[in-house]
Every structure is written in C-alpha cells, then in structure tokens.
C-alpha cells in the first residue's frame, strides 16, 4: 500500500506543498482520562470510603469501650459492712479484707477510708460531713483476677459467718447487664457496618456502571476495529482503578485523619472536664493499628470492586454488541 501512495502522491490531483513535518503529540490513553462523570464517580467513591471508614472506626471504638467497661467492673468486687452498735467498724473492715484476700483469685484488698467515703457522699450530703455522726456503711474493694475469679459463694458464706453485717457484692448484676449491653451495642454496630458496606458496594457498582454507559461508544469502536474483549476490558480497568484509588484514598485518608486528630485532641486534653466527659461517653478515639489497617482494607476493597465492576460491565457491553447479531428484534442500525 505504501508503494501505491508514493505513486499516487505524484499525481496532479493531490498537490501537496513540502513543509516541515508536524510533530505527533504524545499518544493519549484510549479511555479519556478525565470527564465530568469520572470526577463525579471519584467524589462518590471518596464519600462512600469516608463513611465506611468512619463507621468501621466508630464500631471498633464502641466495641472496645463496651469491653473496657465490662472488664473494669468485673475486675473488682465490693464488701459492704453495715454499721452496728456492737460492731468495731475498723476491725470488721480489716477482718473482711484479710478474709477475702485469703481466697484464691483475689489479688488485692483496699479499705475505703473515712475521707474517701465522705467524698463519695459529698454530692448528696455536702461538704464537712462527719462520717461518725451517721450510720453509713463502709466498703472494702477487693481486686480479683478476671481470668481466674474466686469462689464467690464460699467467700460470701465465710464473710457472713465471720461478720454478720458484711454483704458481698460481686457486681454480677451489673456485669450481666453490661455484657448484654456490650453485645447489643456490638451487634447494632455490626449491623450498621453491614448496611454502610452494602450501600458502599451498591453505590460504587452503580456509579461505575453509570460512568461506563457514557463510554459505550468507545467500547463499540474498539470492538469493531478488532480489539479483543480482554484488551478493551483492561483499558477500562486501568482507567477505573486510577479513579477508585484516588477516590478511596482521599476518603480513607480523611477518615484516618479524623481519628488521628480526635485521638490527638483527647491525649492533649487529658483530665479536663471536656475530655473526661467525651471519654466517658465514647471511650478513647484511638482506633489503633488494626483500625488503620481496616481503613486500608476498605480502600483496597473499593479499588477492587470498581475495577471488577468496570471489567464485568465492559465484557457485558461487548457481549450485548455481539448479541445484536442473533436477536432480530434488536436491530438498531441504519437501514439505507
């Protein structure tokens, strides 16, 4: 063919002036790198990644907070001794502590002294309270080994025999309630996480398909000039991988920054009323390295999801183009 063109170029019908040859611009990608729908998809992916990462972090925070409540409260038991005229309170407190720590599974015993007891009652009875004037029960706090707790029934029996005014509170009621609450909270959190993840998956799939539908003509042209389906799919995969990495990266990094900033604020404002209240309500904002790993995993999942959706959609589009051959009802070309 080149021979024919050289021959024909000399014909009068094709006059061409000799000019310096034009330079060809660097070859553009087959799929246009940026357009409105591509940017919209990137934004959608960034928002969904951000929400999914926030939810993941929040759920892991709630779970760890619930666990820490449960662990703190089940780490201690309380011996309460009611006042009695015949009872030497200080001796009874010491006896109760000494008796309790003889049991296997206890690690330490602390008597809540008069000053501490006054402070405990201060919100109700005011300052300057003389504890000796009132029949106030006194407390002994026993720390136990959570993994190997003592035999509460035997301890209760021994205490009651030694000091009839003693009452052992193993916090079982509270622990049971907290365990139930922690489980419920974790369950709700997991449910929310599943919902957000499902929404993310569907949004990413539909947004990717929507963006691809605007590029159907490119798929058609490539297919008709002899491109294999795998070639067309890989061109679109590359394009959508870039979009999803940018979107998911932005969303994930933003979410990680939010957690890092909240954690930083919390560590800088330790022991202030604001921080104490926030910590009491939400626990620690730190999500730990597993949280950051989870954020990275979400970013990878979104990138994979977008890329695979692009691949399947392109393959399906090519299949549909070929299907027109065998379905007369779908003849959509010009008939001249």
């Amino acid at each position, binding site marked *: 063919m080149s021979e024919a063109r050289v021959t024909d170029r000399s014909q009068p019908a094709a006059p061409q002036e000799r000019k310096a*040859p034009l330079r060809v611009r660097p*070859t*553009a990608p087959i799929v246009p790198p940026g357009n409105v729908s591509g940017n919209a998809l990137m934004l959608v992916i960034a928002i969904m990644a951000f929400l999914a990462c926030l939810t993941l972090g929040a759920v892991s925070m709630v779970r760890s907070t619930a666990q820490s409540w449960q662990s703190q409260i089940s780490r201690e038991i309380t011996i309460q001794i009611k006042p009695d005229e015949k009872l030497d309170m200080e001796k009874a407190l010491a006896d109760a502590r000494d008796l309790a720590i003889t049991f296997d599974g206890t690690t330490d015993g602390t008597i809540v002294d008069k000053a501490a007891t006054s402070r405990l009652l201060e919100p109700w009875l005011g300052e300057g309270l003389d504890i000796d004037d009132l029949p106030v029960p006194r407390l002994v706090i026993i720390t136990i080994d959570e993994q190997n707790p003592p035999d509460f029934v035997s301890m209760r029996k021994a205490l009651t025999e030694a000091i009839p005014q003693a009452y052992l509170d193993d916090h079982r009621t509270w622990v049971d309630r907290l365990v139930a609450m922690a489980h419920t909270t974790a369950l709700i959190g997991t449910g929310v996480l599943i919902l957000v993840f499902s929404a993310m998956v569907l949004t990413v799939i539909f947004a990717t398909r929507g963006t691809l539908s605007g590029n159907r*003509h490119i798929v058609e042209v*490539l297919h*008709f*000039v002899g491109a294999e389906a795998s070639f067309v799919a890989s061109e679109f995969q590359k394009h959508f991988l870039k979009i999803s990495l940018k979107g998911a990266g932005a969303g994930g990094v933003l979410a990680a920054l939010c957690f890092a900033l909240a954690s930083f604020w919390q560590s800088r404002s330790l022991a202030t009323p604001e921080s104490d209240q926030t910590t009491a309500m939400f626990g620690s904002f730190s999500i730990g390295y597993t949280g950051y790993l989870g954020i990275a995993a979400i970013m990878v999942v979104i990138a994979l999801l977008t890329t695979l959706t692009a691949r399947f959609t392109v393959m399906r589009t090519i299949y549909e183009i070929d299907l027109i051959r065998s379905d007369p009802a779908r003849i959509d*070309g010009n008939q*001249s």
Partner: protein
Amino acid sequence: MGPEILRDLTFDIPKKSFQFLTGPSGAGKTTLLRLLFLSLQPTRGLIRMFDRNISTIPRDEFPMLRRRVGIVFQDFRLLDHLTTYENVALPLRVRGKEESSYRSDVLELLGWVGLGERINVLPPVLSGGEKQRAAIARALIDRPEILLADEPTGNVDPPMARRLLNLFLELNRLGTAVVIATHDLSLMDQVEARRMILSQGRLDIYE
C-alpha cells in the same frame, strides 16, 4: 420480529474483486454491510466468510476475523478525545503494535488522504469531509483483505471523491476486495466495476 429487510440473496465477494453496492434508501445496503462485518446475524440463511460459516464461529474469534475486514461507517465512528492520527492508528494500537513501528505509515496515509496538516486535530474540529477521510484511513491502515465502505464519498467534494476512489482502486490492485455502498452514480460511472443493486430486499448483480 421486524420486517424482512433482505431475502433470497445469493452472491459472493471474490478475492481481489471491486464492486459497488447501490440501491434506493432503505433497500438494506447498510444491513448487508453489517451482515458482512459480523455485526448482525441473518435471521435465516448462510453466510460464509473466509471459508467459514459465520454462525458457527465462536464469539472470541470475531476480533481476529474483523481484523481481516476494514469498514468505513456511514457515521464515521471516530473517537472524539483522540486526534486524527490516533484515530487512524487505533486498529494497529489495539493489535498491540508499538507506536514507533507504525508512525511513518500512519503519517504517510494521512498525508495521502489530505489530512497531513490535521494530524493533531480532534474530530469535533474536523469538517464532515475530513472526518470521512479519517474514517477511510482508519479502515485502510492495516491493509484488510476486504474493505466495506458505507457511503465513503458522501461528505466530500467531487475532486476528493475521485481521489478516494483512486485510493480504493489502488488498494484493490494490491489485493484487497472492495465493496462500496453508494448512491453516487457519478462515482460509479468512473469505474468499470461490478454493480450490486439492492431493491425491495432483492439483489441484482451486473458484472
């Protein structure tokens, strides 16, 4: 099922042959070209292409067959984000060829179809005739065994139509079978060639 566009057609496109496909609007010229390009399958009947029955060819072999066929679409089907050069080079690019291996061939062909100064221009800026020539160049670039052209001179002036016809003839002399679907009687009168006339779904052939 829609109306029957074509029926009782029996013909062959011999190797290295040159023919015009003509007939009134709506006669089915584009449909026939699409059948030959594997983008439509007949409701009934048999089409053999390169000695193979196309209804029994697996889908994944279509790209390899299409590479042996060049087509000029009536609506050009150029990609708007690629330059004239990139559009014409597209068939070679999708075959995995290195750009350096085909650059001079593409530039030479573009020069021949009169687009040598428009290599870096995007299709929306090209005139109808320039788009037409770019679409023809894209169909020719890989020297197909058979070239199907749907109204290839519909948007160009007579001198350029003559020049494009010369290009098709030259390509035919080099061994490519050419089918040109056209309404243009003056174009057909320039060449002694086989005429396939479609009318009311039937085909008459004048050798």
